[in-house]
């Protein structure tokens, strides 16, 4: 059983979805677009760092680019461990929602 916080979950799924192109900027954009919740740039790094420490994602250095002030992009990708966690998460989510009565229509 992987214990992940909500923000870790969201970030982990985002990394999974973005596949080859997951790094700070895109992860943030993605989260902003899909959840519609404005995360500050800094807010995604803490969960990312925790995920990395737990071994669920790993980092990969890209080529340095001038628009990043000569720094490399740091790409994130989901590890085997991370995939297991995603599986489990998905199962738990589905299990939790199964047979739940409808909530009715509510504009978010």
């Amino acid at each position: 059983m992987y214990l992940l916080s909500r923000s870790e979950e969201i970030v982990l799924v985002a990394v999974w979805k973005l596949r080859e192109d997951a790094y700070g900027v895109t992860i943030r954009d993605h989260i902003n677009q899909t959840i519609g919740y404005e995360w500050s740039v800094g807010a995604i790094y803490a969960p990312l760092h925790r995920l990395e420490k737990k071994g669920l994602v790993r980092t990969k250095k890209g080529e340095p680019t001038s628009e990043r002030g000569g720094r490399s992009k740091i790409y994130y990708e989901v590890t085997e461990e991370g995939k297991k966690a995603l599986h489990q998460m998905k199962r738990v989510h589905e299990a939790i929602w199964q047979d739940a009565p409808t909530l009715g229509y509510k504009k978010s």
Partner: protein
Amino acid sequence: MRKKSPSHRPPMMAQWLLERFVDRNIRYSALGDFEEIYARIAEYEGHLPARIWYWKQVAKSFPPFVTDSFYWRYTMFKNYLIVAFRKMLRQKLFSLINISGLAIGMAICILILLWVQDELNYDRFHTNAENIVRVVINDQNYGVRWPVVSIPIGPALKQDFPEVLDMVRVGDTYGLITSGEKKHDEYGAYVDPSFLDIFSFPMIMGNPETALSMPASVVISRELAEKFFGDSDPLGESLRLNQDLDLTVTGVIEDMPQNSHFDLDFLVSFEIYRKRDRDPDNWGRFQIYTYILLQESASYKDLATKVSGLLQQHNVREGPKLELEPLTRIHLYASDGRGDIRYIYIFAIVAVIILAIACINFTNLSTARSSTRAKEIGMRKVIGAGKSDLVRQFIGESVLISLISFACAVMLVWLLLPTLNNLTDKHLTLNTHGNWTLLAGFVGIVLFAGFLAGSYPAFFLSSFKPGNILKSSLIPLHRGGKKRTLFRKALVVSQFAVSIFLIISTFAIFKQLHFIRNKNLGYQKDHIISIPLRGNASQQYEAFKNELLRDSRILSATGVSESPVVIGKIHNGYEWEGKDPEKESRMYEVLVDHDFIKTLDITIVQGRDFSKDYATDISKAFILNEAAVKGMDINSPVGKDFSFGDRMGTIVGIVKDFHFRPLHEEIGPLVMFCVPGNFNRLCLKIRPESYGLSGTLRYIESVWEKFAPDFPFQYTFLDAAFDRLYRSEQKTGRIFGYFTFLAIFISCLGLFGLSVQIAEQRTKEIGIRKVMGGSVSGITLRLTGDFIKWVAVANLIAWPAAYLAVMIWLRNYAYRTNVGVIIFILASAVALLIAFVTVSFQAIKAAVADPVKILRYE
């Protein structure tokens, strides 16, 4: 492709701030991302919104930064502090031992620091201190350095060498100053007017430019002004020097500070000295001090090579060479300086050693008592403290203890300073105002002690394995402890080795001083009064002497050119029958009266004493000592021709060697001749004190009043004058004695702490032993045996080291005591006894305790 221009980069300042605030784990990628987003916003919305956005990010990242670092740091610091104080209060005895030991060690360090600083600061208060050098003579004929030179040298240097800006000649004098009814003997000097220019002695009254230009002017110190004129204005008043020179006060200077090598109370124009000298243009008569002021850029060493042969260009015989000596080195390095650089090193080392002994106490006690901290360390590690956090915590704790000790040390210093000032004749104060070196020294002492004491326990304690500690209720006291106890033992051994070393050194110093005081000098120094001859007492010498001898309490009297305790006059150029022309003939000389040898009980080994029966003795007789005869390489010297300059005659007698110089030196060759009327002193042999010393003195004074009422009556006892020669040794010995005592005290504090700890640890063992029938004495021995062994081992280290040090120190003396094994054995016995008493106190307490109570405690 978007074209990049430098303006697309975020503001430097914001970037720099962000770099500091962002957590270091994500710094690299975050900064890159921020910059990319910045570039995007700049591209689509313009620079200003991009900038605003970037600054917003900076502002947002600030609060977490604050909470992360400051808040947690503060919280942990508070926790460390609380834990430290709690520990200190819970273990009162050990805190007391640690703090008092460190406080004493630090107090000694501070005292020595103050003393060293004062010694090093001699003569540095002059504005020109760095550029003033003294001209001295290195006389290769005699192998000595004279601090005095001849009168024409100063002006010649100033005239011929452009790098010499100015010069001043100083002819010091001790004279009687009178004004109306008041008369005082004072030290003063004849100086050139440039004196007040070159040296920085602030003038309170008068004009420094002109004060010394008038030939009959005198500048006096504040003290002298108050002595003679009280509160009234001294300017324009007249003073009389030595009853024959009328002077007008033209200025008053501040009293010369204690850390100046000058101690003069009046200054008179050098012109007077020059005019009175019988041969002022002679380059070969060395009699006055000369200082020169060099240009800022000039090096005194360069000048020294240029002037070294100057004397020989002015018809001075081969031998004496000019040398230069910086003003700031006079006190510690010069032959006439009162300080000694070697003592500075010795005491600095002693200070560090004593502080180290105190630090060892701390190290030992905290490792020995590590069990009391084990649980805490385990807990901290489990919660997430790293090794470095614990190291920081423990070093912090020891720095805290060292800070508390420092506060106590300052109080101790404040209490002890008067004693030290008394011992060293200084006016040291704990005034830190503007004294940055001293403040830096304080900080250094606190940090040095804190780190030295705390580093081993810190690394040792922080390496505990939390698993081991927390798993078993048994604390791993002895597991892997062998190395640790060995380390602890080594520390105790080194503490005691140092203590024993100091005890032996102290004993050796006192033994040598005792040896000096009781050495048979070859002459009688007891019951001899020596008075300086002045005024009519000097001019009517014979009458004065005969008047004194009329009283039966005065057994005999003799005039002499110098006090026989130290005869300083040395001459070359003696001739004798059968002398090898190549031979050196350097001998000390003293002018004596007919009664000299009789009065001082000097033994004649060959020939006879000077006698009034032989009229020619006054002009033709010489008496030599054995050392002179030995150096002359002459058989049956009595009756042989002997001459010095125009005084030609024969050797009439040989005296046994007597110590007319300090015992540091071998007895040198000495020539005595009998020239009545040329004496500076009168030595009186009086009847022993049972006849009433004060009455005798009163009688001598009454005769003095008859002959020289203008001069104050002064006298010294020869044995007191002799003791004064060794005053610095006696002081050093006493200071060393105090230090030794304190070092032993601190070592014992540590030993006591350890013995308490061990007795506590072995309570159960002691209880079982007693139940099984162990006797109190047996158990006591068992507990003390270990410590005694350590102290015994310490002896093995201390003995050879002390032997070496004592031998090196004794090499200063030509006549030295036989060190002997006794002081070594005595020192060891003292150390063992003290250690035994310290330890057995605890051991007996543990051994007599009721075993039932002890064993029931679980």
